[in-house]
């Protein structure tokens, strides 16, 4: 008999809008202890808004968000939104997680130890004094994961954690997140990368303003669901027990070439 896992956050028919235009419609979703979910969908499908609804940083115009009492969240923003030229060292970024309720500007010995511990855990020990721009892509992503982890969250939310990074960094980040999830941390991330990230995750949410499907990749990564999610025909192949998604690029591009000529 499997025990029902504790629900951390539950969205019940949530609709969010910027102005009058709904960007997320009637979304019902539960995030439970130990979950490792990916939210996929085309640009403008409401992925980041769904993440923000889970965070509580956008207020729904309909529906409700219920967060279990005492649940703490960690948030890792898109690296593209970070000002890499800001004069701030790795330690200064990580200690930002200890802002609320702290009076003194300098870090206490305990706080410094905690920062060292989390940097060590993420394999970036000894980089505390370095400026954030002086790090590799994978190290930069780890700094922001470290900041989120310092708050000891029950749920880690990441917005496009592998966008704009090379294959090696993508593998590093995915392995790191897998390890954290194995240690018991619930994780929800958004991604554009169907083959590199989404198909490796245990649970997916396909979104196009409303939730089209959710479940294991094997169940949701089908041509029908992907076409309804992306509005484009896609083929799903199986290779080595994994799904590989191929969009029918040629079918779409040939008429454009012809019309352009």
């Amino acid at each position, binding site marked *: 008999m499997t025990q029902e896992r504790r629900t951390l956050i539950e969205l019940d028919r949530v609709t969010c809008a910027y102005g009058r235009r709904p960007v997320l419609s009637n979304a019902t979703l539960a995030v439970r202890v130990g979950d490792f979910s990916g939210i996929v969908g085309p640009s403008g499908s409401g992925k980041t808004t769904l993440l923000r609804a889970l965070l509580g940083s956008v207020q729904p115009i309909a529906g409700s968000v219920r967060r279990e009492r005492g649940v703490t969240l960690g948030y890792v923003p898109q690296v593209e939104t970070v000002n890499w*030229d800001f004069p701030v060292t790795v330690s200064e970024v990580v200690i930002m997680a200890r802002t609320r309720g702290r009076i003194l500007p300098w870090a206490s010995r305990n706080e410094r130890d905690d920062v060292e511990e989390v940097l060590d855990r993420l394999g970036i020990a000894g980089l505390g004094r370095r400026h954030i721009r002086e790090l590799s892509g994978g190290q930069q992503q780890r700094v922001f994961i470290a900041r989120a982890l310092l708050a000891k969250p029950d749920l880690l939310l990441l917005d496009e954690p592998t966008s704009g990074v090379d294959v090696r960094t993508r593998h590093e980040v995915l392995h790191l997140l897998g390890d954290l999830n194995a240690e018991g941390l619930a994780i929800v991330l958004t991604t554009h990368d169907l083959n590199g990230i989404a198909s490796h995750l245990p649970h997916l949410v396909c979104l196009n303003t409303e939730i089209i499907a959710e479940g294991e990749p094997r169940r949701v990564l089908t041509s029908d669901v992907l076409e309804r999610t992306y509005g484009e025909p896609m083929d799903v192949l199986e290779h080595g027990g994994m799904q590989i998604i191929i969009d029918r690029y040629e079918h779409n591009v040939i008429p454009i070439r012809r019309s352009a000529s």
Partner: protein
Amino acid sequence: MTVSRLLEPYKFEFFFHGVIVATLAGGLCGLIGVYVVLRGMSYIGHGLSHAIFGGAAASAVLGLNFYVGAGIWGFASALMIGRVTRRRLIGSDAAIGVITTASFALGLALIGLFGSASKSIDATLFGSILGISTTEVWVVVGVTAGAGLVVFFRYRSLLFTTFDAEVAEVSGVNTARVDALLMLVLAGSILATMQVLGVILIAATLVIPAVIARMFTNSFSRMLWLSTIIGTACGFVGMNLSYQLDISSGATIVLVGAALFLVVFLITGPAGLRRLAATDAHAPS
């Protein structure tokens, strides 16, 4: 130039007051300027000083105390800019442009309609050390101490909000309150230092020390200290030169800062230039 010549102006009480105010004003603007520059709001010092000029004119016409009238006007303008920028109705530079120039124009119109304000307009525009009263010295001391305490006790939330407002907000930091607090401190700093630095030149004292400090360091805490020290030094040296060269205090303080910028720019070279890129980025989005 002999030591006695350098010490000569200290015989006069007005100069002693002026040195205290200019030194504190330089340090104060250097401190607050770090946040202004890193938020990509360098134009705000220029704009707010103009807005406060409008308030100063209105308070003179209405017979109100300068600090009360100009202070309320400045705080209201600063909060309005913060609110408009936060709601992303228009960009921060446009918000500053619209709100503060309208306020400045209103001040000019009031002076045109009801005669000149009781305070010298020249002194307000370009800065003057003449006629700084003991009360005004204490106002600058009080505002400097207040700003220092705000930065000390709100260091972490100010840094987090300046670097990454969205994550700060979801991490439980009341970013709206932090932004409002910074705007109030900024308006207070401009109000208190306007007499010595002048409306036209005050923006430079906010920007130059922070930019010089940025060229030296990649650490926020060090940038804060360095900018404060550089601002203090520029205020002190500039005020003394102002007397010796018989040039207005605001202009001399800014020129000392600009000369220092040039020297540091030549010393730090490409590394300094790269670091300066941050001061061009509109950090919080």
